[in-house]
């Protein structure tokens, strides 16, 4: 009798316990997707591709298997959600519009943090939208071409001084140089060269014209946009490009292209350093359209990720403006 009781006790406790755990686990899985976050070297998001019907709630259980990550959806107002190691964060999303959305990590979780992306395919009847090409494609720019400014200013151009100089420009010339289309399609060096060749502006010194360029760049953005861009830069760019823009971020030099362009016989990868935005020869010869192109398309094998699926167009232009601020002395 005692032995039978002992066996029942063991069976109830061990088998019953195991079954209870299994049932609890199973009931947790109904209509819920458990999304595991790991450093990209360890697999990134699992699963990385999710599908849901438009209008239907997507129940997510987010957990990290290593370090702190964060879950955010590109081009969305959905606030980023922190995912802590070993903890389960519950999140429900509903997508009204069919399409492909990108979710990504906003925490600097490792050298390959930016690779940590996944997609949510929202099915349903898609509303046709006008397909607008990015400006660099409209302009036919080769954004991968090597370029270097032939002329650079002796000292950092000043927006404040440029404003004063610009006020002296003939109105017609000023309107041309300050227009949005002109600004976006020309590099600072190109604008300076055109000013230098402008017969109406021969009385101005080289530095005064550089100051005027700085003012043109400043006047094509707003302090609010620059503030937002500063945050975006700190969140997404500074890890590689550095807080000062000098390309000296903590992960600079640790980026490796995914495939091709191999010059290293041992690793099959070459180290690609992040662009130095404080280098006038590089940035002053880059047009805003080309910068926007690099941002939305990415660096194609250089380690520079594509932000087109993450940032809105407005955010991208704000970031472009912010990148040039490393070259110009802002107005006080």
């Amino acid at each position: 009798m005692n032995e039978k009781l002992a066996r029942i006790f063991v069976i109830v406790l061990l088998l019953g316990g195991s079954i209870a755990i299994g049932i609890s686990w199973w009931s947790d899985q109904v209509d819920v997707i458990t999304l595991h976050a790991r450093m990209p070297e360890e697999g990134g998001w699992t699963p990385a591709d999710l599908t849901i019907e438009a209008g239907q709630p997507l129940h997510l259980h987010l957990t990290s298997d290593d370090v702190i990550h964060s879950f955010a959806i590109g081009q969305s107002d959905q606030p980023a959600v922190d995912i802590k190691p070993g903890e389960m964060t519950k999140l429900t999303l509903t997508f009204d519009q069919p399409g492909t959305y990108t979710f990504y990590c906003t925490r600097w979780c490792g050298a390959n943090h930016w690779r940590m992306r996944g997609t949510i395919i929202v099915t349903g009847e898609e509303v046709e939208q006008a397909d607008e090409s990015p400006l660099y494609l409209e302009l036919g720019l080769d954004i991968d071409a090597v370029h270097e400014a032939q002329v650079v200013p002796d000292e950092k151009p000043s927006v404040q001084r440029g404003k004063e100089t610009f006020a002296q420009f003939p109105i017609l010339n000023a309107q041309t140089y300050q227009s949005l289309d002109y600004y976006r399609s020309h590099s600072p060096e190109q604008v300076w060269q055109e000013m230098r060749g402008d017969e109406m502006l021969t009385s101005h010194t080289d530095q005064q014209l550089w100051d005027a360029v700085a003012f043109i760049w400043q006047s094509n953005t707003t302090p609010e946009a620059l503030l937002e861009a500063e945050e975006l830069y700190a969140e997404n760019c500074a890890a590689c490009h550095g807080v000062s823009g000098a390309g000296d971020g903590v992960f600079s030099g640790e980026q490796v292209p995914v495939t091709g362009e191999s010059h290293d016989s041992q690793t099959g990868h070459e180290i690609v350093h992040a662009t130095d935005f404080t280098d006038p020869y590089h940035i002053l010869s880059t047009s805003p359209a080309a910068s926007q192109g690099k941002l939305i398309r990415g660096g194609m094998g250089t380690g520079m990720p594509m932000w087109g699926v993450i940032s809105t167009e407005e955010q991208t232009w704000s970031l472009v403006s912010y990148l040039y601020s490393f070259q110009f002395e802002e107005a006080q």
Partner: protein
Amino acid sequence: MNLLHIPLIKALLKNRWPQFTIIVIALAGFILAILSGFFGTPVGSRNFGIIFVWIAWWAILMLVAVPFFGRGWCGICPIPAPGEWIQRGAMLGPRGQAKGATLSKSKGLGRRWPKRFRNIWLQNGSFLLVALFSTVILTQPRVTAIVLVAFLFVAVGASLIFERRAFCRYLCPVGGFIGLYSQLAPVEVRVVDTAVCKSHTEKTCYTGNDDGYGCPWDVFPPGMVKNTYCGTCMECLRTCPHDNIAINIRAIGTDLSVERNRKLDEAYKAFIMLGAAAVYSAVLLGPWGTLKLAAYSVGTLPWMAYATSFLTLILLALPGIFWLMVWFGKRLSDASQPTKKLFISQAYALIPLGLTAWIAFSLSFVFANFSYVLVALSDPFGWGWDLIGTAGIGWTPWLTNLTPFLQVGVLVGGFIWAAITSSKIASEKLDAARAARLSTPVIGFCLVFTLTLMGLLIA
């Protein structure tokens, strides 16, 4: 004082149910640790397996069970239970079986453990094997689960092939040091009167009878003078027809004064434990990232260098230096005993030093990380459960201000205890003055070790 004079204690220990219930609950916890290792979060700080095995169980073992109850843990350990149940063909015990069954007869092959391995050298080896991979085992739930499953399989296998608890006695990596340190415990299981045993021709404490099994630890209770190999399973209490078993409260460290059965394998165990405490303190608690990385990168060249250094320190350097100290002591005291014999006997002074070193080491992280236990209880798999409402508790280190003082106290206490033990052992064959000369270099060794560990743990 014989605790069995208290009727309640005697009743609880003689009855098979209390012990059986605790073992089954511990087994459930053990299985949960395995399941959470395989299916739970790989984040160690949120996984039941890691937290319960390496923080909760370890804390109970090193801070309570071993110092106060010696092999008390072995009496309720779940690891050998499944193998033992198969071996015996019963879970609870004799009363439920057909009367008249030869209870000590194994249902497995029932072989005797090979004579050449009737020592703890294999346990020394199994501990070192686990210790070499400890950084990975202690931090990765899946690896912990694999190790626990391996323990279970080896224990079951040993029960099927050999008689009694061969795994516990000769293989268990933990059992080896528990046995060594159980010599310090303030409790002991002994016979009340050996004369009674002499007249008891059936020796049921060793062979078993209708009331219980023959000693699962292959110990002959009337001949027991140390705690080392008594698993406190209480079978002798149940099988003795003359009520001749006692559980005595005694002075701590009593077994160290017993001259009989001092052996090289046990002496080496003392070195292994001493060295491992120092290496763990450096690797797991020290500020040296390169060392941590090397210990963690199993299979790489840096890890091999780490493993080689670890084994060299523990198996050669520490015993070598100690041998030199003993040799100096022998020269100073002009002792006539062979150096090897002095080396072995003096190594028993390292037992209190080792236990206090492990207590001090454990204090470093047990209280600091104990809040994880509440979280793991509520959400053992890291699946987002909140069974007892404590899953959301953040990491809250406890007693961190007090810990260094406790550690210093424990280490100083251990050093004094070791010094006294060394002197006592030396005095067994020498007069006081010569004994002091013999033990002085050994005490110097203990002092240097204590200061080193103090530096590693506190400075």
